[in-house]
């Protein structure tokens, strides 16, 4: 049996069964989740053994039939989706009941189908179909919150998602007109730099950045992710946005590799940097936990777009492999951390009826495990060792040093500090039963100088230590 087709067919089959027997939706959904995870495991094992997998569907050879393909990158995302999907399924089985469960399960399994289909697709038009299925099921799930705000946010999400898909499709039309094929590998082999390829790249990657919520096209994400039910928020932030990032990466590295310019890479990097700063800033000022988590997603997506300029500056070899590994590591870490965060917030919201950060006092006493989850997810988001994003950020910094692109280093460090600030803002409230202080600074004249000294000791010296070497080494370099 063909494991690639099974990884798409099984969640789809489960979605159909859950549609037909709504009263048994939860049980059927859980069984479907297990079967889907097992199929994903099969694909991952085969990729592990053979390196690459591919198959042509429908009994037709490649230009005529549709290719499914898997390599290390798709296997990694498939694995993340399987684990996060299983966790979300278990959580949702306890979270939803009655009519909500009946609505949730078929849509969630359709979403999973679309994710697996997208990670395994080797055909440009098939990718569009999976994008549509992904977008529509994500929008419908987001509206399950039921109130007016959730529906309004979902409608905006739908319009943005459709615009992104159409833009992607326009690019595919150009490529098909020029090269007479839809197969990713074939088009990649035939692609020549020129106006057609450049227009297709702009349309496709531009449309996908909208779906990936890259600054300044992130405006739809915070309301949509913050107003959805917790398991849905987790799926949207951890998986759905990542699917668009994965596709950008796939197109950037596989399809448009001969075409990408330093200018285009710098543009993506610059937008990513702006996303890191803006997203972290808004997360720092969010009043509700879910909004904080959503803005944190905007920022974390930003980090991923710091990689293209470094790819551009790094010749193929171990350095570039390190960068790719770091990028995937950061995608995975954020996927796990953010889904954990949203699920934990869901617990707090169900218990206390709200998710206002200012009123979290005593959460550590009432929900120790959930508070610990917030802490662990926070560690991963900040990138403290030994989390995956620590290694990811370390390699990212290495790449930036090696290629002399100093600007990114500043962005990464600032973003990390701000992440630490918003994570500790939540944790300090959660661990604190005392009334919260009215403001950060109580007596500016005495406190600020001390704060400044501490900041220099903790941060300033680390960044500005370089001049010490010539100063202490005095005269060795001939000055």
């Amino acid at each position, binding site marked *: *049996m*063909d494991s690639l*087709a*099974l990884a798409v*067919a099984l969640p*789809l*089959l489960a*979605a*159909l069964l859950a*549609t*037909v027997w*709504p009263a048994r939706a939860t049980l059927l959904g859980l069984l479907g989740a297990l079967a889907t995870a097992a199929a994903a495991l099969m694909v991952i094992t085969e990729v592990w053994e053979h390196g690459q997998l591919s*198959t*042509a*569907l*429908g*009994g*037709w050879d490649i*230009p*005529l*039939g*549709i290719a499914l393909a898997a390599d290390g990158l798709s296997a990694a995302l498939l694995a993340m989706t399987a684990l996060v999907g299983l966790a979300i399924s278990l959580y949702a089985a306890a979270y939803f009941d009655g009519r909500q469960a009946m*609505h949730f399960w*078929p*849509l969630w399994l*359709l979403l999973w*189908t*679309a994710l697996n*289909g997208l990670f395994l697709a080797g055909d440009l*038009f*098939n990718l569009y*179909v*999976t994008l*549509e*299925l992904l977008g*529509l*099921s994500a*929008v*419908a799930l987001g*509206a*399950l919150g*039921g109130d007016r705000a959730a*529906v309004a946010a979902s409608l905006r999400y739908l319009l943005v998602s459709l615009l992104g898909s159409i833009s992607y499709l*326009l690019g595919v039309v*150009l*490529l*098909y*007109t*020029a*090269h*007479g*094929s*839809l197969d990713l590998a074939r088009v990649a082999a*035939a692609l020549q730099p*020129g*106006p*057609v390829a*450049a*227009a*297709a790249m702009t349309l496709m990657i531009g449309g996908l950045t909208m779906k990936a919520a890259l600054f300044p096209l992130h405006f739809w994400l915070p309301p949509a992710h913050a107003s959805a039910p917790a398991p849905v928020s987790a799926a949207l932030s951890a998986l759905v946005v990542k699917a668009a990032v994965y596709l950008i990466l796939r197109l950037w590295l596989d399809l448009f590799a001969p075409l990408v310019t330093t200018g285009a890479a710098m543009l993506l990097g610059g937008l990513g940097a702006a996303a890191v700063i803006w997203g972290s800033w808004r997360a720092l000022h969010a009043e509700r936990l879910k909004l904080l988590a959503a803005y944190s997603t905007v920022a974390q997506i930003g980090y991923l777009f710091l990689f293209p300029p470094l790819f551009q500056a790094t010749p193929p070899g171990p350095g570039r492999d390190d960068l790719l590994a770091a990028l995937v590591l950061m995608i995975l870490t954020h996927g796990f951390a953010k889904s954990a965060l949203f699920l934990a917030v869901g617990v707090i919201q169900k218990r206390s009826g709200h998710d206002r950060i200012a009123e979290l006092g005593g959460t550590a006493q009432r929900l120790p495990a959930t508070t610990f989850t917030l802490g662990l997810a926070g560690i991963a988001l900040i990138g403290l060792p030994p989390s995956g994003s620590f290694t990811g950020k370390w390699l990212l910094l290495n790449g930036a040093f090696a290629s002399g692109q100093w600007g990114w280093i500043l962005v990464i460090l600032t973003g990390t500090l701000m992440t630490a600030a918003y994570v500790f803002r939540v944790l300090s409230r959660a661990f604190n039963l005392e009334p919260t202080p009215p403001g950060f600074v109580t007596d500016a004249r005495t406190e600020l100088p001390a704060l400044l000294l501490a900041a220099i000791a903790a941060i300033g010296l680390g960044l500005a230590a370089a001049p010490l070497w010539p100063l202490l080494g005095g005269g060795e370099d001939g000055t």
Partner: protein
Amino acid sequence: MNRTPSLVVALLVAPLALVLLWAFHEALTQPSGARLADLAETSLSRTGVGNPVTAVLLSYRGYDTMLELGVLLAALLGIWSLGRVSPGFHPPELALTAMVAWVVPLLILTAGYLLWAGAERPGGAFQGGALLGAAGVILRLTGERRLGLPSERAQRRLAIAGIGAFLAVGLGTAAAGLGFLAYPESWSKWLILLIETATTLAVGMTLAAAYPGGPPGPAGNERDAP
């Protein structure tokens, strides 16, 4: 609406459109090797159908069509999850009611014809399904609350019929060692007809049920109050 921003938008969009048109022209004039359309024509005899569009939708790229039906299903489930809507229709005029008694059976008949004709001529499951959906919409416009649709239970079965047929055939051929959705040549025509019939029903039912918005209503109270 004030007109200045829209004029600015038009001025900004126009050069973009020109660039796109130029790129499209370049793409058209670029010489390319074997085109997919030629290949689709030459392989047509092995698909069991004579209409190249049907061959693309059901045979060459059946997997795409299956997922597209998934999109339709997601849309319908999404609409159903949004809760009930208030009926906002005027009671129908006599002339409309009389005409509908003719139009609806004709639409259903034509849908059946299109489904059968699709194998050799323009037509097929989506066109036939669209007509069935239209029949439901017209019934709704004359005050028929349930659009001629069966119970919710039956609607759920119909909604998945197309994908269900695709999956059953696909998993069957995969289990037989042929590969997912790889129809054996001698069975191809009939398997395609089976999938198309199920798809016609699913598309028609989905389009009709999507039109009024909200989940299927409870039984009884079949017509709007005059």
